[in-house]
């Protein structure tokens, strides 16, 4: 298990990738070193009126493991604040948190990385870390981002809701349109997915039907980020080993779960 640290990181760069999507590289002492793909960090606001951390997935770790990249969408006050920070500013973060994707399960398999919207960023580091035959399906609302990074580490298929690029529709549509099907012998042997709940629900159903091993990264509002407060639970199919009830903690037991383990 990776060692968690609360650090005052330093912002190395801040860049706008799309209308409301930003990318930030942060210099850390410990966190980048410990991080693995699919894990996230808690980012603390610098404004005293906001007391809860913002969980943001680790998009990339630099080769020297001294810095990490966060790619995030401005959706509220916290992310708006982050977007206004500049190189040189400092930012308190806690991490790495959560379990991350079980890369070892993908060994030798045709792995599909499916990211939707702001669920795309963790797929960059995941693709980077995986060897072998990687298919990356990226679903966007309209504007594209992180395409170059993704293309560096695998074959990329794109879907957009407004049809402005790639396949019109969602990630499953893009799979079908590109012949990534059982009929063609090109279906996934294992899926790693991250994105909005409706997308995850559809992927879970598809995987269940096709009997494909599928790992999904869940989202829930968080307070502690380390498994102590029980704010961020999702419902589990079976009684959970730790909680003794039908609840799993997204921050600690997840965010990545086997799709059959959890209710969506």
């Amino acid at each position, binding site marked *: 298990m990776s060692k968690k640290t609360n650090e005052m990181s330093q912002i190395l760069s801040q860049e706008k990738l799309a209308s409301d999507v930003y990318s930030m590289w942060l210099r850390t002492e410990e966190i980048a070193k410990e991080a693995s793909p699919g894990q996230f960090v808690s980012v*603390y606001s610098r404004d005293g009126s*906001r*007391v809860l*951390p913002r969980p943001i997935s680790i998009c990339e770790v630099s080769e020297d493991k001294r810095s990490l990249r966060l790619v995030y969408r401005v959706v509220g006050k916290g992310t708006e604040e982050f977007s206004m920070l500049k190189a040189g500013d400092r930012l308190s973060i*806690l991490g790495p948190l959560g379990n991350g994707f079980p890369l070892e399960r993908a060994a030798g398999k045709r792995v599909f990385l499916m990211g939707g919207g702001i669920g795309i960023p963790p797929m960059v580091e995941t693709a980077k870390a995986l060897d072998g035959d990687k298919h990356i399906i990226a679903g966007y609302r309209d504007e594209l981002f992180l395409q170059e990074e993704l293309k560096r580490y695998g074959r990329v298929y794109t879907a957009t809701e407004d049809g402005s690029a790639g396949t019109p529709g969602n990630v499953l549509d893009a799979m079908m349109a590109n012949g990534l099907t059982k009929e063609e012998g090109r279906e996934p042997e294992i899926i790693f997915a991250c994105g909005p709940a409706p997308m995850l629900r559809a992927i879970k159903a598809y995987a269940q039907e096709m009997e494909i091993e599928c790992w999904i990264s869940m989202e*829930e509002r968080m*307070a*502690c980020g380390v498994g*102590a407060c029980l704010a961020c*639970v999702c419902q589990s199919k079976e009684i959970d080993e730790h909680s003794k009830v039908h609840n799993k903690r997204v921050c600690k037991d997840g965010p990545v779960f086997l799709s059959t383990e959890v209710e969506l």
Partner: protein
Amino acid sequence: MINTKVSLAGVELKNPVMTASGTFGSGVEYSELIDLNRLGAVVTKGVASTPWTGNPTPRIAETYGGMINAIGLQNPGMKVFCERDLPFLEKFDTKVIVNVCGKTKEEYCRVVDRLSDENIDMLEINISCPNVKEGGIAFGQDPFAVEEITAAVKKYARQPVIMKLSPNVADITEMARAAECGGADVLSLINTLTGMKIDINKRTFAVANRTGGLSGPCVKPVAVRMVYQVANTVKLPIIGMGGIATAEDALEFILAGATAVSVGTANFFNPRATLDVIEGIESYMQKNKIQDIQELIGVVK
């Protein structure tokens, strides 16, 4: 050498700083981030007689300078707690206080009875949770119920009993007196203030339970006022909490009359908050040439 030791009903804490129930699990998770040996005490999440599922999500929402939560006292039940979580806590050189919840007087007693056999320093009885339909706050807003349940659990407890009071009352001193009459050894306050947040875009409640408990720095003035009132009403020692994030905050409570303090929500935005408070109290004492923390307790009158 300055002395930060305090005694609560005969239990001596190395310093007055503890964790607030429900914000620190049973210590396992935060032990990766801070040294539990440094804490005056660890107060665990509420424990019931059987596993509780808690409320649906979203269970929390951020508010201005604080948060509301409606976890609904999810817990694995006293059996698992005693077999798995207690042995973990026993490894540390800190006092262990177990928070107890229940739906009926009988359930509270059952839990207290079970915990009495364990290596636990104190029991904190949560009669003030605003997020469960039965039990909890239903007891905490009625002085007769407070006295009754205090007397009932006291019959089963072999450890000193802390009664945790709700701030959602017109007169906190009435509840404090009732707990004192019932035989409480220590009082802790405040639990959360009942609050609500509305998501104006989704036009629905921000937490699934509709209402939740407000905590964090925003509630501190209410908490300090109540601690002050209670300290000047009853003779029992008080554990003060509600919005403590810094040593300055903790010292407000101590000067108002608290013998010990708990750090809750602040752990969420500063995992080191408890340690910062301990270190800050020491520096304040050094700076102000105060030998013994006793010299500070309740001196603002």
